[in-house]
Every structure is written in C-alpha cells, then in structure tokens.
C-alpha cells in the first residue's frame, strides 16, 4: 500500500468504498434541479430529469468511492439526460404530444428579477452543444471541481478545461450586450480616472 502511494502520489490512493445512503439524497435536489434546468432549458423537463435520475439511483444499492455523492449524481444525471435525448429522437412525434404542454409554474422563485435572469442564463446554456453544456453545468452550476467533473463526464481534465472555456465564451457572447455594458462602464470609469490624472499632471 505504501509503495502504491509513493508510486502514484497521495491522491492516487483509492478512497474507501461505502454504500450510498438514500436518506442523504434529498439534500442534493436543489443543486441537481438547477443543473437539470441548465441542461434541458426548461423547468418542466428539469423536474422530469431530476426525478428520473433519483429513480435510477434508487433502483438498487449503490457503492461509492469516498464521499463524492454529487459527482456520482452528476454522472447519473448526464447518462439519464443523454439516454432521454436519444430516446426522444427515436420516438415518433405525434400531434397529440402537443397536448402535453403544461402551463409554466407561475412562481419558480420568490424573486421575480432573479427568475428572469436565471431563465435567460439557463436557456442560453441549453443552446450549447451537449459537450460544452455538460462541462459548464458540472463545474459552474453544480460546483464540481475540474477533476470531479472530468470523472463524471468521462473525459480528461484537459478536455474538460477546454470545453469549459469555450462554453463560457459562447455563453458570454450570447449575453454580450449586458456583459459588455457592465465591462464598458468599468472601462470608462478607469479611463476617465486616467484622463483626469493626466490632465492634472499637464
């Protein structure tokens, strides 16, 4: 064991195995819901995705390495999301499905201004390609470390970093007007200060 630790470094030591305690799962519902919303772009689909994810996780006893429940949930969420998309693309679309549209939840958050911002942000993320979307959701929405996110998405850390960078760039570009507005005003403030100071010197 000590030899392995020396050979692979301290982090390479396998974490102890433990059985996932179902009672600990409800604490992750909110975070997973936010991740699902950003993945799907709609609250209704997010609810379905979260419920399906938990249903899968609970279908049999699960053994985890260490304490990384959230990492594990992200992995199942990703698999459920991708499976759902493949199934949906194979399913013949019938006119009747239109009837399934349900009125939007009138009170998604207690703060309406935040609701609009969230809606806009998540809708923008949902337009990204799957790989970029998953990277952004895993790190920025769910709050996983780069390492955990890479493991959950089954990609190398370098790949995840690149995807994340591109995803953020695309989202920022989509939200450009308001982001630019903020940055412009910051720049203007700095420049104005510079001019005054120059003028003073002259």
């Amino acid at each position, binding site marked *: 064991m000590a030899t392995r630790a020396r050979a692979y470094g301290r982090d390479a030591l396998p974490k102890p195995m433990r059985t996932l305690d*179902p*009672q600990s*799962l*409800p604490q992750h*519902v*909110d975070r*997973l*819901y*936010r991740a699902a*919303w*950003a993945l799907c772009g709609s*609250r*209704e689909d997010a*609810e*379905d995705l*979260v*419920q*399906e994810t*938990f*249903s899968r996780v*609970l279908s049999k*006893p699960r053994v985890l390495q260490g304490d990384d429940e959230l990492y594990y949930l992200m992995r199942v969420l990703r698999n459920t999301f991708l499976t759902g998309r493949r199934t949906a693309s194979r*399913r*013949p679309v*019938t006119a*009747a*499905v239109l*009837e*399934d549209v*349900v*009125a939007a*939840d009138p009170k*998604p*958050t207690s703060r309406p201004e*935040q*609701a609009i*911002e*969230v809606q806009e*942000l998540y809708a923008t993320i949902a337009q990204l390609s799957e790989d970029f979307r998953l990277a*952004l959701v895993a*790190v*920025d*929405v769910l*709050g996983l470390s780069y390492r955990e996110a890479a493991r959950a998405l089954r990609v190398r850390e370098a790949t995840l970093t690149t995807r994340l*960078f591109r995803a*953020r*760039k695309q*989202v*920022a570009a989509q939200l450009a007007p308001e*982001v630019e507005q*903020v*940055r412009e005003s910051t720049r203007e403030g700095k420049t104005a200060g510079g001019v005054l100071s120059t003028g003073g010197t002259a």
Partner: protein
Amino acid sequence: MSQRDPQIDSELSERLRAIDVRAPQELHERIESLVAERAAARRRPAGWRLQIGGAVALAAIVAGLLISLLGGGAASKLTMRETVALTQRPATASAPSENARNGTELAVAVDGVPFPYWDERFGWRSTGSRTDGLDGRQVTTVFYVNRDGQRIGYAIVAGKPAPTIKGGVIEWRSGTPYRLQHAWGNEVVSWQRSGHLCVIAGHGVNPSALLALASWQGHETLSA
C-alpha cells in the same frame, strides 16, 4: 484559438454559482417519497424480494385459473390483469355526461378524481361505464370510443394507497411517471392521480395516443 479571458470566466462562473433557485416543493416531496418507498422495499425480507417477479406471474396464473373455475371471478383479486380485463368488458351503465360546471371532465368521479371529457379535444366520446369490486375496492371504468371505432376503457381504483405496479416502460410527463405496457393483447398505460391508480387500456390503439390522453391535464388544471 483565441486567448482565455479570465474576466469572462470569473464573471460567468460567479453569476452561475450565485443562483440559488430551489426546486419546486412538489419535486422535493416526490423525491422524498421515492426514498421512503425504496427504504420500505429494502426492509422487506430478501426472499420475498427475490421472488417477487415469479410470485406476480404465479399469482396471475392462479387468479386466471380461479376465475375460470369460479366462472366469472366474482371475488377477483386486485391485479393489473384483472383491472385491465375490466376495461375490456361491456358497459353496464349509460355514458356519463359532461360536467356542467367543468367542460373538461365528466360528471363521474372516484373519491373526487374525475374522469376526463375528451370528446371535443380528442374525439373520444364516453359510451358507457361500469363499477366492479376487486379485493374489496371499487373500480369504476368509463368506456370511450373514437371516430375510427376504437374502444378504450379508463379505470380508476378507489381507495389509498394505490396498488403498486411493476414492469413496463416508464415515461415521464410533467413529473408524473406513466407505465406503458403491452399486456394481455392490450396497450396499457397506468399511473396515479391524487394517489389513485388509473389504468387506460385498449386493443390496437397507438401507445403514444394513450399516453397523450392519460397525461392530458386539462381537467386537472381547471379543477385545481
């Protein structure tokens, strides 16, 4: 490749991480109920759990034999097979009419759970109904026919908790799991409404159409 902009990274990350939207209360409740259901299932004896599939199949065969031996199954067990069988039997009462106060439901309900009125929207009109007893529970079935002459039965089982159903494929609609099965020559969709088991079954009916009918919430929305 363009240069990495740390400002973009941090601004966006901060905005995303600052979002603290909570999941709807109903979703929390559903997950908690899933956890509780799973915990209860794990507390059952292992042998019972392992043999559940075989036991269900055996029960269905035994029930079938009993029904044939008893000539009609007056004291039938509450099984999925029996419930589906009811949806294929003839009506014993006239067609329920449209609810005068709510045009999306019929004037017949089980424990306050109304049957939907589909004629105007989907072209499925109610043609009759029947009420039976299974395992001491009342099962009310309304029959619908569409313009092509296809017939389906919509059964609601009275009493709570709803019997547990297994097998089939689960499709989620607006947070509700719908179980789709092809069984006993019928396409079957089963789910719960307000804690009551509902079953729609029909022979030769497109499962997607059955699912769309089952998951239509027009009557729920209006009556809520």
